[in-house]
C-alpha cells in the first residue's frame, strides 16, 4: 500500500495531471474574475485547498476543482518525492539536480510569499507623522483604552472573524463582544428628519444619525467592501447596549469621500457637520475605564515613525502630464536614535526594518494647491521575507540547465574528436 503511494507521488503522470489541473484552474479562475472580482476570485480559486462551485462566463456551475494551495502542495510533494526517490549523486547529474532544486525553491518561495508577505498602505498629509500603515481591504475592530499618560492599549479583533453570532472574550477586556449581525459590505445614508419614521438600527452612537444597509459584495477592482457590524457589549452583570461599528465611520479616507459627496450638493458647512457626526468617537465605560471602539482598516505598527515633509507632483514643462511623484519623509527611530530625511519616488523605495516603502498615490501639485487642500501622499508598504527566493530559484535553475547543457556539449565534442 505504502509502496503504491510512493509510486503515485513520485510518478511523472501525477505531474502531468497536476499541471493539467493547474491550466484549468488558471483559466477558470481568470474568467471568474469578471463576475466575482479580482480579489474574491484570487482568494476563492488560488488561495484555497478546494473550490466548490465555479462561475463560468456568468453561469454558476456546481463543479469542484482542486484549489491553488492543493495543486501547489501536491506539485511540491511530487517534485520533492521524485527528486528524493531518483536522487543519484554524480557530476553528470549535477545540472539536473540543481535545476530541480531551483524549481523546488521557486515553489517553496511562492508559498512563503503567499503566507508571510503583507501589503499595506501608509497615507499621510504633509506635516503628519505616522508609525503605522493600514490594510487596503481588511478591517479590524479596535477596542482602545488608556494604558499610560501617553500610551493607549489596543485590542484588535480581525474583521474576518466578525460574523453573525460570534462572541469575543479577552483577558484585557472586562466585557464580551457579541456580534448581533455583520455585513461584509454595506451602504450608508444620512438620517434626514424626513426619514426618521423608520427606527434606527440602535439608539446609540453613530446609528442615531446614519442608517446602514447590507449591500452585495463588490466585484469592481476600484471599489472595496465596507463592512458594518451590529455589536452588543455585555459584562457578567448587564448589557452595555447595542452599537453599530462600521467601516464607514472608522476610516478617514471614507469619511473624506462622504464629506466630498455632500460638500458638492449641500455646501461645505453641512458636509462638515455630517462628516463630524460620522467620525465621532464611540465609547463604552466599564468600571470607570473608557473603551472607545471602531471598525477601522487593519493596522500594522512599526517601531519607527515617518513624517511627510513634502509631497511633490511635478509635470512635464508646458503640459499637465505627470513627470514625477516624490515624497520627502523624515524617518525617526527612537530605539536606534536615527533621524534622517529620505526621498521616496518611482523605482527608489525606502527599505527599512524589513519593510519596503514604495511611492503609491499622491494628492499634490497645482490643482491641490489651487483648491486649498493640504497635499498628501500614500506609500505602499510591503513586507516580504521571501522576496529573494524567486531570484535565487531562477539563478539555480539557470545554473543547473547551463551545467547540464555544457556537460552534454563537452561529452559530444569529446566523442566526435575521438
Amino acid at each position, binding site marked *: 500500500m505504502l509502496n503504491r503511494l510512493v509510486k503515485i507521488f513520485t510518478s511523472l503522470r501525477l505531474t502531468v495531471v497536476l499541471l493539467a489541473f493547474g491550466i484549468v484552474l488558471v483559466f477558470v479562475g481568470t474568467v471568474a474574475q469578471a463576475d466575482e472580482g479580482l480579489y474574491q476570485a484570487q482568494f476563492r480559486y488560488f488561495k484555497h485547498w478546494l473550490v466548490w462551485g465555479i462561475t463560468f462566463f456568468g453561469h454558476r456551475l456546481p463543479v469542484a476543482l482542486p484549489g491553488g494551495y492543493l495543486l501547489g502542495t501536491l506539485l511540491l510533494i511530487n517534485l520533492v518525492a521524485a527528486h528524493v526517490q531518483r536522487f543519484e549523486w554524480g557530476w553528470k547529474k549535477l545540472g539536473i539536480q540543481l535545476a530541480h532544486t531551483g524549481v523546488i525553491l521557486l515553489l517553496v518561495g511562492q508559498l512563503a510569499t503567499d503566507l508571510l508577505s503583507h501589503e499595506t498602505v501608509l497615507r499621510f498629509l504633509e506635516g503628519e507623522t505616522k508609525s503605522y500603515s493600514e490594510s487596503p481591504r481588511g478591517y479590524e475592530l479596535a477596542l482602545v483604552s488608556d494604558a499610560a499618560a501617553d500610551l493607549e492599549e489596543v485590542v484588535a479583533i480581525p474583521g474576518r472573524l466578525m460574523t453573525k453570532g460570534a462572541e469575543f472574550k479577552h483577558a484585557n477586556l472586562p466585557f464580551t463582544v457579541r456580534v448581533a449581525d455583520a455585513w461584509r459590505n454595506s451602504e450608508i445614508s444620512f438620517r434626514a428628519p424626513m426619514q426618521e419614521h423608520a427606527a434606527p438600527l440602535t439608539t446609540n452612537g453613530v446609528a442615531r444619525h446614519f442608517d446602514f444597509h447590507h449591500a452585495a459584495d463588490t466585484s469592481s477592482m476600484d471599489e472595496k467592501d465596507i463592512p458594518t457590524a451590529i455589536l452588543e457589549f455585555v459584562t457578567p452583570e448587564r448589557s452595555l447596549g447595542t452599537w453599530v461599528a462600521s467601516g464607514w465611520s472608522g476610516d478617514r479616507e471614507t469619511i473624506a469621500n462622504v464629506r466630498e*459627496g455632500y460638500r458638492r*450638493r*449641500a455646501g*461645505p458647512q453641512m458636509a462638515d457637520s455630517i462628516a463630524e457626526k460620522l467620525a465621532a*468617537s464611540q465609547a463604552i465605560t466599564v468600571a470607570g475605564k473608557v473603551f472607545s471602539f471602531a471598525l477601522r482598516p487593519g493596522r500594522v505598527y512599526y517601531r519607527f515613525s515617518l513624517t511627510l515633509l513634502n509631497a511633490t507632483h511635478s509635470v512635464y514643462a508646458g503640459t499637465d502630464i505627470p513627470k514625477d511623484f516624490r515624497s520627502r519623509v523624515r524617518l525617526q527611530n527612537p530605539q536606534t536614535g536615527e533621524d534622517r530625511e529620505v526621498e521616496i519616488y518611482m523605482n527608489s523605495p525606502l527599505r527599512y526594518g524589513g519593510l519596503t516603502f514604495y511611492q503609491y498615490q499622491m494628492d499634490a501639485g497645482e490643482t491641490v494647491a489651487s483648491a486649498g487642500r493640504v497635499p498628501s501622499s500614500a506609500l505602499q508598504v510591503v513586507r516580504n521575507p521571501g522576496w529573494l527566493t524567486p531570484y535565487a530559484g531562477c539563478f539555480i535553475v539557470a545554473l543547473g540547465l547551463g551545467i547540464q547543457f555544457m556537460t552534454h556539449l563537452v561529452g559530444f565534442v569529446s566523442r566526435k574528436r575521438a
Partner: protein
Amino acid sequence: MSLSLHLSSGRWPRLLVAFLLSTALTGCGGDEIKVYRVPKEKATEVAVQAGALPEGHPEIGGLAQPRLVWKKPEGWNEAKASEMRVASFNVKTADGKQADVSIIPLPGTAGGDATNVNRWRGQVGLASLSPEELKKTAEAVEIAGQRAELYDLSGQAPSTGEAARILGVIQHRDGTAWFFKMTGGEALVAAEKPRFVEFLKSLQFQVAEAQPQLPPAHPPISGTATAAPTASSLDGKPTWQVPAGWREIPGGEFLVAKFTIAGEGGAQAAVNVSMSGGDGGGLLANVNRWRVQQLGLPAWYDADLKKETRSMEIEGGKAVLVELSGTDARTGQLARLVGVVVPRTGQTWFYKLMGDPKVVAGHKDEFARFVQTVKY
C-alpha cells in the same frame, strides 16, 4: 563513482505529516486577536482636511458655470480637459518644445490673487512679492467686456533649471475666480504671447446655456439630483404623507428618500426625493440632466424651459413641474418622468417620479398631491 539515495518507505509518512502540519499551521496565522500598546493618537485627524479650504470658501464644483466660447488660435491643439480644468490646449513646436494652456474656474476668491500669483512665481524660481508690489507688475487685459490682470512671469524652473515663462491671468466674475494660464519654455511662451492675448479677447461667457452635465470631478451619484438636508431642514422637520402602495427603500448616501411603485405585470416606477443647497445648479441644468443623462433626449435651452414647464401651487409658494418621455438610459426601456422642483430659501428640493410610462401616468396626480402635502 555514484551515490544512490533511497529512503526506506517507513520514513515517508513522517515526512508527509511533518510537511502538511507545518503548512497547515503557517496557513492559520493572522486571524487571532492582537493586543498592543501604542502612543496615543491625536483626535484632530479628520478635521485636518475640513479646515483646508480658506475661510468662507464656497463649495467647489457645486455652482453652475457659464459655458465658455473661444476662437482657437492657429497652431494650438485642444486637449482633453482634466481634473478642474474646463478647457485645455497645448502648443507644440517642430523641435519638440511644448506649452500648456489651462482654464480653471474656482468659486469665490480661491485663496486670493496674491497667493496664486506668488505660487506661479515660485514655479519659475521668482521670489514672492507683497500684494501691492504684485499689482504693479500686472498688465490689464479685457476678457468678455471685463477687466482682468495678466502676470507675465519669466525665470528658471527650479526642477529643471531651464528658462521658463508663465502667462497667468485672473478675472473675478460673478463670484468665480477664472484662471487662464500658459506655461512652457521661455522662448515659446514669449512667441505665443500675442496669440494668448488674442485668445483671451475672443472668450465669451454664455450664461444662458448652463451645463447639462455634472462637473467633471463630480462623484457618481445614483438617482436624480441628490443632496443631504441643510441645517434649516433639520430644524424645520418637514413631514409628508406617503400614498398607499408606495414602498420606501434605502435611497443610498445622497437621496433624502426613495419609494418604489409597482404596476401591472412587473412594471415599476420610482420616486426619488433629494435636496440641494442654493439653487442646486439651476433649473435648466437639472432638467437637462434628466433629459440628456437619464432619458437620452437633447438638451433644452432657456426658451424651451419656459415653454415646456408649468407652475404648480404648493404649500407656501410655487414649484415648477416638468413632464418628459424618453428611453431610460439604464434599462433601455421607454420611460416617463415627472419632475417637480421646489425652490425654498437657501435650498432646492427635487421630486422625481420615473419609470414605466403606464405606471407613471397612473400615479402622476397622486405624486403631485404628495409633493403638495410636504410641510417644510
